[in-house]
Structure formats: C-alpha cells, structure tokens
C-alpha cells in the first residue's frame, strides 16, 4: 500500500478566510488542524484567476498558455495531459467529486462529457489520453459533478430534482434570462448574488459533495491506493447558504475588510492610479469579462452589502470545513489516516469588497491571487510541520501528487513538487510565481502577465481594447499588503521594474498553438 491523496478544492476562496491564515470571521478548525500538522503556504498563487484555466492547471500541471485554456469557455481538450491519468496508470483508484469545470457549463448541445455523463448514467467514459492510449475521462475512473445551485445537467442537480424537487427553486439563479451572470440582489442589504435560501442543510451541495466522496471511498478495498479530488463549489457566489445556518454570523457584526476604504474618494483615488479598466469597471462603463454581472455597477456597493457578503461567504467556508471534517473522519475510520496526504486549496480568490469591488476579473492583486494552500503530508511520512513563505503555484500541485505516489513527474508538467519548508524552497529555486490573464469576449480584449518575486508583484499589460501596452502595476507586498499604491511609474523603482519584467519574460511558458477556440462564455 502506498500513500493516498485527498485533494480538497473550494471555489473562489480568499487566503484570509481561514483561521490559520489569520481570518477571524469563519471558524475553520478542521483546516486549521491540517495546517498545524502540516505545511501552510503563505504565498500560493493561481496561474489564472478564473475557474477553467486554473482548474486545468491543477489537473495538467501546466500554465494556461501551455494547456491552452486561456479563458473561461475554452474547453480543456479531452486528450490533455492529466495527473489523474498518471496516478491511475500507477495503480491508483481515481475520482473527482464536485465541481470540475474543465469544460463549459453553457452547453445546450451537450457537446462536452461533463454535461452528458450525469444523464448517461455512466461513471466515466473512455477517451484518448495525451500519449494516445485510451483510458477513463482525464484519468478519473469515477466522476460525479456539482456546481453552484441546482441548474444544469450535472449529477447534483439531477439528484436534487429526483429527490427534492421542491428545493430546486430555492437557490439563487447564477445566470439571468439573457444567460449573463445575474445581477439580481437580495438578502438584508439588497446585495448582488445574495438570496435567502430555505434549502435544508442536508440537501445543500456542500454536504452532497462530502456525502458522495464518502460513498466513493466506501466502494474501495481497504488496501487500495486512491487519489480523490473533492471539489466544493462554494464559497463562490451566489452567496445563498442554507437559511438554517445564517445564525452563525450576524453580518451587522462583521468588520469591513482592511482593503475596503470607506470613503468613495479614497477608493477612487486608489483605483485611478491603476490601469484604466479598474476605474471603468468600478464606474460601470466597462465590464471587461463575463465573470462579473454585466448589469451591476461596483460603485453602488455599500458597506453593509460588503458586510453581508462577507458574513455569508464565511458561513459557506464553515460548512466546507465541517464537511471536510466528516470526510476525514471517514478516512480515519477506514484506517487510512496515517497514509493519507491531504491538500487543501482553491482555484482563485474573490475581491469580496476590496476597493469596493466584488467577484473577479483581470485584477492581479492579493484578493484574487493569494490563495489558501495547506498540505498535510501523510503522518507516516514524518514530515515536520512548517510554514513556507516562498512563492509557489497551483502548477506545483500535480508534480506534488506524483511525488507522493512515488512516480516520476512527467516532462510535460511545468511545476515542481511543493517545498516542505523554506530551506527546501530555497534549495530548489522557488523564487517566483507567474499568473496570466487573457480574455477576448464580445469585442473586449484584456491581456495581463504577472510575476510575484522578492516581495513584489509586477503586472504588465499587452495591447488590448482599453490598454495600449504601456500600462502596468507594481506593488510592494510588505508595506502595501492591499496593493493600494501602484508604483509602476515610480522613477526610483525603474531598475527593479525592468528586472522583474525581464524575469517575467524569461520564464514565460511555451504557448499552445494554434490557440483553442472559445466555445461558450463560461
């Protein structure tokens, strides 16, 4: 028997939502305990701040430029490299339960397996792998999908329709009648993507994901090695946790985020020092990407709405923590705990009120880029608990899983197995982490490349709809933790900026050619 791997991802969760990372709102004792017993990463970044590219990075171990999912709506090819396939070939049982999103959701023609598997009643399908051999879909022998709410053809939605049809309409509808991200508001403060949801907790997707994970684990022999990706759709908006749980946090008691200046003048002054799409979005004159509601204007966001969104988000984080606790209890009951590695992370962050903004987009700041990442190595591996401050990326997860399983990381993986501590990081060259953004949708194109190194975050813009290619952002993380002061044009920092940009260019990943087509907005 080898080491088992439980990869736990959430969707759109900020670094500061965990107690172990200094968060004071949500109680997350299960993840905090994993951090205490394992390795907590303080500077983990995604390689894209939206779902499909980032999730594709997790499964392929490649940058978006290389795996080709350069924006939401671009499907990851079925024959893309997959760490699950590597592990499956090495004898691991493999499963993904919850939100996958390697393929577009908006798919009326049912062209993509993620949208047709639930209806077909099959656990996976056989498709070509990167090396041309045939195997389970992306290397996963068992697939059960869920996403936000009860819409669509995925397993959770079908389960809810079959067993609790009265609950289907309780959720907030993520898309509106025009199939745009919904701007409808609700809750006590009339905040966007907020709704009172009377669904019983047992029927909510967080508990369903945990239940189905446990069911799959139950199907395995005790001596099996397994790789299970348990993927919670929360705390991504809509913020509609079960009403029964709303008592946990009264939004009226929630402090405003440190990155939310209460004065509109202060917010606008900070935004005006950034490339122009920041302020244009804030004012409602440009919604550059699909991931934020087209009809919502951030300048209308009130302090109370920020409080309510943060309260609801924290409640969703608590439910995830408790669901994870149930699964870990089950792992222990099966006698697997000593040999099970647990990795907890997310695909990207959420602005969640920073600078008066919600949701996500082409904004490479900590709200979206600094991620929770915890690796609790299997206790049998006797790894010393540590905190890693060196920059790491989600691109490093796939080679980490290979290392855990004792198989060589394939050459197509572009990251390195996560460091066990800062000394390990230093010796293996964890100096920088890169993040990309490309989007071209409905006549608006935006292109960013970012390097985080030596306590600085440097972003350069390629020419696009509202950028001429000269714009950029430069932030110092230690004295400007919320990235309020853009020092891109600071004369005394020109040499540093040029050095960072040269390093960024020198480490650009190989681009996939030809570029893959956008098949849907999401």
């Amino acid at each position: 028997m080898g080491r088992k791997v439980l990869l736990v991802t959430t969707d759109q969760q900020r670094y500061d939502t965990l107690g172990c990372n200094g968060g004071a709102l949500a109680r997350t004792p299960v993840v905090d305990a994993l951090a205490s017993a394992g390795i907590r990463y303080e500077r983990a970044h995604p390689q894209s701040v939206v779902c499909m590219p980032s999730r594709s990075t997790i499964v392929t171990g490649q940058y978006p430029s290389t795996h080709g999912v350069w924006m939401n709506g671009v499907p990851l090819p079925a024959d893309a490299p997959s760490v699950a396939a590597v592990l499956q070939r090495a004898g691991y049982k493999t499963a993904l339960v919850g939100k996958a999103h390697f393929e577009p959701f908006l798919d009326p023609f049912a062209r993509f397996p993620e949208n047709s598997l639930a209806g077909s009643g099959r656990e996976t399908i056989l498709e070509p792998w990167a090396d041309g051999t045939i195997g389970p879909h992306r290397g996963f022998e068992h697939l059960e999908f869920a996403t936000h709410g009860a819409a669509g053809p995925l397993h959770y939605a079908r389960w809810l329709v079959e067993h609790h049809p009265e609950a289907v309409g309780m959720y907030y509808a993520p898309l509106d009648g025009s199939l745009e991200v919904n701007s409808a508001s609700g809750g006590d403060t009339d905040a966007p993507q907020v709704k009172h949801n009377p669904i019983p907790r047992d029927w909510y997707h967080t508990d369903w994901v945990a239940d189905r994970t446990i069911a799959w684990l139950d199907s395995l022999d005790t001596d099996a090695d397994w790789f299970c990706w348990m993927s919670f759709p929360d705390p991504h908006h809509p913020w509609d946790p079960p009403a029964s749980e709303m008592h946990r946090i009264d939004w009226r008691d929630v402090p405003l985020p440190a990155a939310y200046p209460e004065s509109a003048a202060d917010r606008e002054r900070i935004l005006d020092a950034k490339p122009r799409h920041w302020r244009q979005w804030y004012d409602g004159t440009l919604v550059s990407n699909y991931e934020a509601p087209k009809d919502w204007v951030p300048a209308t966001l009130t302090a109370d709405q920020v409080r309510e969104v943060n309260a609801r988000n924290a409640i969703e984080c608590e439910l995830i923590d408790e669901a994870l606790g149930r699964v870990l209890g089950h792992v222990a009951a099966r006698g697997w705990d000593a040999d099970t590695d647990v990795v907890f992370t997310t695909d990207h962050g959420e602005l969640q009120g920073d600078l008066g903004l919600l949701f996500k987009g082409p904004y490479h700041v900590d709200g979206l880029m600094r991620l929770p990442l915890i690796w609790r190595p299997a206790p049998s591996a006797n790894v010393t608990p540590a905190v890693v401050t060196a920059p790491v990326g989600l691109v490093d997860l796939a080679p980490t899983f290979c290392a855990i399983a004792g198989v060589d990381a394939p050459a197509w993986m572009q990251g390195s197995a996560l460091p066990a501590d800062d000394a390990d990081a230093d010796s293996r060259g964890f100096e920088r982490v890169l993040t990309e953004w490309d989007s071209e949708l409905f006549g608006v194109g935006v292109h960013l490349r970012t390097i985080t190194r030596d306590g600085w975050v440097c972003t350069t813009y390629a020419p696009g709809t509202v950028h001429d290619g000269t714009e950029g952002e430069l932030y110092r993380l230690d004295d400007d933790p919320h990235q309020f002061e853009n020092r891109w044009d600071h004369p005394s920092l020109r040499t540093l900026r040029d050095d960072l940009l040269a390093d960024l260019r020198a480490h650009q990943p190989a681009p996939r050619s030809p570029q893959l087509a956008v098949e849907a907005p999401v």
Partner: protein
Amino acid sequence: MSGASVRKEIRIHRRAAEVWDRIADPGVIQDWFPGIVSSTVDGTTRVITLGSGIAMPEEIITQDPVLRRFQYRITVGVFRNHLGTIDVIDLHDETCLVVYSTDADPRTMALVIGAATAEALVELRDQMESTVDLPTQVKGS
C-alpha cells in the same frame, strides 16, 4: 448591444452543388451537426432536438438554390432575436466555401451556437470529402 454576431467558415473540396444539396435538406441536419440528435420538418417549420434534450422550433426563412443560401430563425423564448445563415460559395475549382453565420440576442447564445456551428462545419467537410467520387455518368443518373 445585447446581441452578437458570429461567423464560421470552412473550405470543402467538393462542388458547391453537392454541398448545397446536403445543406438544403432541412430534415437531415442531425446527420452533420453534432449536438443535434433529431429534427422534424413541417412546411417551413423545423423542430430540432439538442443533445441536452431541449427542443428548439425554427422557422425556415430562405432556401435559395441559386444563391445557395439557407436561413432560419430559432423561435424559442430565450431568444429575443436569432438568424442563422448558411452560404455555400462556389470557388470555381471544384471546391466551395461554406460560411455559417449566427446572429443572436442574447449574445451568449450567439457564442454558444456559433461554436457548435464550427464543429458542424468540420463534420460536414469530413463527411463530404470522405464520400467516394462517382463517375460523372453515374452522378448524373
């Protein structure tokens, strides 16, 4: 603007007349358009059923064998507007260019349908180009 326009095209190494014959028959679209599983035609009304199970009624607007243009409009509720246009353009070298345009409101559906039409054009080309060339006298019989 709440609508959008998407255009896809492909060159097919078959005569325009052959390709047009395939496209002009509204009842066989499921044979070359992946994601459409069936269709029924009644006069100028066609109802297609998608892979997701959604049935979409369409009105056939143009079926012009001279211009080699086929146009239809999806009339189901979510669409405030839709126009699908397939043009078969003779390149006069025993090949043709097929252009499939989708104008739709909401704009998201233009993107989704447009992407599916790209796949359909590839399938159409593959089918047309894989058919065995028949002797001229047989083609005309």
